[in-house]
């Protein structure tokens, strides 16, 4: 059974069809990339999956259960972590607190926990959450930055912190929205290795990215979106030579 299944998903904003009857499955354990020109509807797809938008038509199911129509926070709690294209860290909080917030669904003590903050059972959970958060930070090589303000990190590290924060949710599926944007080649290489390691821990990765070298080097499969329509899907080497894809990126006449 596939982990995530988009069945005939369409969303319209007034007259604009941003995503048009897309069928797509994400298999357990794979790295799937979604590419396409600017405005193709890639980020809209992520917003549909995470419940920020509800599809006008079609359904999305995760682990065999329908999630389209659910609230964003219940979808996250079901095991879908995500990062954002324009970094959305909790800027004025420490790196560790950012990841601890990501681990929110791993904890149980709520307001009553605040009243009993010094009780051993609450402290035990806090300790476990902190250990887990540090563990997630180690995965993106940021543990040494744990007590710095998130806003003070350099850009590339902020992107990695977003990944750590999403991992803290212990997701089955992680959605990475342009994780390599704005990184230099060395940083991209480091990130590529990190994403591979994350997949090796059993997390399925679904990412949107513009950098072709990055996508080709990382993905098991690639899906291509153009004007909200899925125009191709397949292995990196097939996508590279697919005439429709080349046309979408470079225009007619580029195929030779």
């Amino acid at each position, binding site marked *: 059974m596939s982990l995530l299944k988009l069945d005939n998903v369409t969303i319209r904003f007034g007259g604009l069809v941003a995503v048009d009857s897309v069928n797509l499955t994400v298999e357990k354990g794979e790295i799937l990339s979604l590419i396409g020109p600017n405005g193709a509807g890639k980020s809209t797809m992520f917003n549909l999956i995470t419940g920020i938008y509800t599809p006008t038509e079609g359904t999305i199911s995760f682990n065999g259960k329908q999630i389209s129509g659910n609230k*964003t926070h*219940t979808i*996250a709690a079901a095991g879908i972590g995500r990062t954002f294209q324009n970094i959305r860290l*909790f800027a004025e909080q420490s790196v560790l*607190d950012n990841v601890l917030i990501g681990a929110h669904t791993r904890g149980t003590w709520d307001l009553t926990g*605040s009243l009993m*903050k010094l009780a051993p059972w609450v402290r035990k959970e806090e300790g476990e959450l902190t250990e887990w958060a540090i563990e997630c930070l180690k995965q993106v090589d940021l543990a*040494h930055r744990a007590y710095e303000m998130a806003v003070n990190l350099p850009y590339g590290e902020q992107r990695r912190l977003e990944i750590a924060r999403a991992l803290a949710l212990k997701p089955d599926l992680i959605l990475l929205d342009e994780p390599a944007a704005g990184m230099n080649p060395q940083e991209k290489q480091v990130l590529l290795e990190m994403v591979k390691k994350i997949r090796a821990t059993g997390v399925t990765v679904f990412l949107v990215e513009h950098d072709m070298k990055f996508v080709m080097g990382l993905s098991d499969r690639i899906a291509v979106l153009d004007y909200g329509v899925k125009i191709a899907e397949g292995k990196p080497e097939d996508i590279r030579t697919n005439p429709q894809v080349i046309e979408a990126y470079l225009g007619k006449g580029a195929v030779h």
Partner: protein
Amino acid sequence: MGALQSIVAMVDPYVLQILVNIGIAIVLALGLNVITGITGQLSLGHAAFMSIGAFTSALITIKLGLPFGLNLLLSGIIAAAIGAAIGYPILRLTGDYLAICTLGFAEIVKVVFLNLDITNRALGLTVPPPKSPIPMPFYVWGVAILSIVFVCFMKESRFGRALKAIRDDEIAAEAMGINITRYKIQSFAIGSFLAGVGGGLYAHFLNYINPSDFGFLKSVDILSMMVLGGLGSIAGTVFGASVLAAAPEFLRFMAQYRMLVYGGLLVFMMVFRPNGLLGGVNFTDLVLRAIGRKPATAEINERHNKG
């Protein structure tokens, strides 16, 4: 208890009055700090919840004569329940819209109290002394210290982290699995609870309450205390509440000009220290440094860099 009474008798009544004012202001400002400073939801109607607490508490003393501690708890709970009920529809709004809604709600509460028979309409209520063996100043400071401890605990717990996440970025908070509606309402209820308790203390300390005492100016008063000290900072709120609750007394010699100084001070603050006097200061670290120990942050950094 006799010992406590004699301590109270030893202190100059004027000083005592200022101290009690400060204690009540701390409870009120901390409540607003939970809503506005920690959760980031601007409320301009904090005095409304204070008045709900004040009238509830006064009526409980008059009609039921319950012990003061239970009385305060009930007043807080009723203020919290009303806070949650009003929060449910209006907390979907953000920023200016929410602020205007809270402002409107505060006016409604004031008008309701001005027209109810049970609250003696515009004449206000005379409140009998509280049923408690502990003298008022101790009660007030006991409650203030409990509030400080509670808000400190809350801010650094899983619950508080969720609130701060909502303040910083609602969309990201939701993507982390945080039910933002629920947490906003809970935060609003906690803030209203503290306002209600503060109102109960206020009513029994002044022995007389009038709906007009809890108008917009009172809300702004409480807001200024928090802004002066630093949004979201607990030490800052305590400091701001202390300064502004005592300020009218120290500026008494300036007679009617003292509001000028007060206003000027806030403008000055906004220009030169928009985060408040103590905003962004980590007190745990400062104390640890002062007693010659390394801050916890440095310690843990070292531990993890070795491993």
